[in-house]
């Protein structure tokens, strides 16, 4: 057994817990999880059946943690997990799984399959079987500070631009601010309007907020490859920044996995509860809306629909606020089939969008989004995740569908009257 395989096996043995044992013991091979997975439904290839993506881990579980499996192993009747096999599984565990969680929502015996994929990735990463694309992103986050190689000067340059364009100062390292706003590289590079939108919204709401010079990047590729050590380093930066600035709430940007990494995995990674709250920007906007702190004027009149990012809705429990926000500024808001809790993934979550080799499959899987869109024929598509946005744009372009994609936060900000006097601050 190679040293890396040994490490992978050791990590897998550590992550196998009672839920995983229960899930493997419960599976009746009914195949219903396949019907929920876009990689199966759009390709018809049974190897993309969610539970099959865990086969090496299942065998290891059986061989190490069950009486019968141990007996079989002793008499040489079981097939050991090999390097080659894990290598082969890379495609199944990463390229063809976006951690969207639809499978976990339908399994009749109740298996939380995506929970297992997330854990399996720990072993895959430890054994050196994570895809280069996400590995690179994780390493850049550790060494440079962001997965796309964005450094503080780039952020500062963007702050300056926004300050000039909007005439609103962008606070940096303001101690005692109520909110610390995080960004994703994608926003810094591709969607600079996000920062301007935040500035307008915060000003209208009369809230204090700040960016943090040592923690502006919210995405966590360490979590996506399944390397808890890297994930911890990345989350720790944010925790330290938030504690140093003594903020009450850290706002996760329009990025699904950043939210999961910080909101649900963060405290578990650093090993202690946070001293601050973590909210997705959509949750914050929802609260402002409820408290009457968000006042918009005018409406979008074209036909709009909303793509629920998996990590925000099904995996994060935020389903209603985005709909109320949509209705606030859109006259003609239509829902796609399966919208909300069971919305279909864009195909690029969980780090999948960073995997070059996975592009063809990703575009194939996008057919499900295409058919959802074809059912309602919107003029524009709104979402709340910069990664979804890029993946959606790629897919739409590939299928020659002329549907612009926009971020909900920006759309809301566009309806905030420019001359609003800040209230309360």
């Amino acid at each position, binding site marked *: 057994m190679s040293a890396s395989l040994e490490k992978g096996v050791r990590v897998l043995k550590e992550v*196998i*817990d*009672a*839920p*995983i*044992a*229960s*899930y493997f*013991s*419960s*599976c*009746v*091979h*009914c*195949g*219903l999880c*396949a*019907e*929920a997975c876009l990689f*199966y439904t759009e390709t*018809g290839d*049974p*190897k993309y*059946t969610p*539970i*099959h993506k865990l086969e090496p881990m299942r065998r290891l579980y059986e061989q190490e*943690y*069950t*009486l*019968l499996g141990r007996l079989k192993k002793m008499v040489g009747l079981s097939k050991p997990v090999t390097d080659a096999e894990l290598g082969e599984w890379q495609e199944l565990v990463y390229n063809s799984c976006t951690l969207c969680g639809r499978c*976990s*929502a*339908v*399994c*009749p*015996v*109740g*298996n*939380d399959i995506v*929970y297992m994929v997330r854990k399996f990735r720990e072993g895959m990463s430890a054994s050196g079987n994570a895809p280069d694309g996400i590995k690179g992103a994780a390493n850049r986050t550790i060494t440079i500070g962001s997965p796309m190689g964005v450094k503080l000067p780039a952020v500062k340059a963007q702050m300056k631009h926004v300050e000039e364009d909007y005439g609103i100062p962008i606070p940096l390292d303001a101690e005692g601010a109520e909110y610390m706003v995080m960004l994703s590289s994608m926003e810094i590079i591709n969607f600079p309007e996000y920062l301007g939108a935040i500035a307008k919204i915060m000003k209208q709401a009369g809230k204090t907020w700040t960016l943090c010079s040592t923690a502006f990047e919210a995405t966590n590729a360490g979590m996506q490859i399944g390397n808890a050590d890297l994930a911890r380093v990345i989350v720790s930066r944010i925790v330290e920044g938030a504690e140093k600035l003594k903020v009450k709430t850290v706002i996760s940007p329009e990025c699904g996995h950043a939210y999961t990494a910080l*909101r*649900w*995995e*963060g*405290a*578990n990674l650093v*090993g*202690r*509860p*946070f001293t601050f*709250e*973590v909210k997705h920007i959509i949750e914050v906007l929802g609260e402002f809306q409820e408290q009457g702190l968000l006042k918009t004027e005018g409406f979008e009149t074209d036909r709009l629909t909303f793509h629920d990012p998996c990590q925000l809705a*099904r*995996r*994060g*429990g935020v389903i209603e606020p985005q709909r109320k926000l949509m209705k606030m500024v859109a006259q003609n808001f239509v829902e796609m089939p*399966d919208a909300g*809790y*069971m919305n279909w993934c864009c195909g690029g979550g969980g780090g999948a969008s960073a995997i070059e080799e996975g592009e063809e499959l990703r575009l194939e899987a996008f057919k499900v989004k295409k058919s959802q869109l074809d059912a309602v024929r919107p003029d524009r598509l709104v979402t709340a995740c910069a990664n979804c946005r890029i993946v959606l744009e790629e897919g739409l372009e590939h299928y020659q569908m002329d549907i612009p994609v926009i971020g909900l936060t920006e759309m809301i900000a566009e309806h905030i009257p420019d001359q609003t006097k800040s209230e309360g601050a």
Partner: protein
Amino acid sequence: MNEMQFLTWVRGDGLDYAVGIFLLGVIWRLIEIYSLGRKKDISASRSVAGASGWHTIFRRSLPPEGMVKKSPVSYIGGYTFHIGLFIVVFLFAPHIMLFQSLFGLSWPALPSQFIDLAAVVTMAAMVVVLVDRINKPVKRYLSTFGDWFTWTVTFLPVLTGWMAVQHLLLPYTTMLALHILSVEILLVVLPFTKLFHAFTLFGSRWYNGTVNGHKGVAV
């Protein structure tokens, strides 16, 4: 051994062994699985009505929206044979008498013609899901020896029981003995095969419901 001796053995020692292995097996497997424990989730929870382990235990008994249409045979066939098995195992008068002699508890039975019908429907549904397993690419792909084996050991008790009652093929005594033997085989293998989902599905649903309920998601 003649048929009378055979029947005596399956009713006596055979049954004792089978029930013994079944009980020890169930306890062993439950400990083996659930003693692995899990780490406490220390992220701040979000509570939402209907999002909990208990809710999921019940909710998952019903098909999620749109799923019946995607896999009608799995759902209709699956419900039919599970309910059918429940009826023939627990609501057939001779079975209730056995339970009474074992645990001292009894309950009303269904008329035997109805049990007859239930047995036939159960077997038909089982054959349908078997054919579906052979025909559907995903199911065939997932299937291992265990799937064919567990189907067989579940089917045989229903078949032999029904044949015994109908006096088909073999003398009643022999068929009855075979019926009891097949049940014993089922009991012995249940804890060590996928049939154990009869126990673990509650734990699985509970974990899924709890882990996601922590995030305010009603799965």
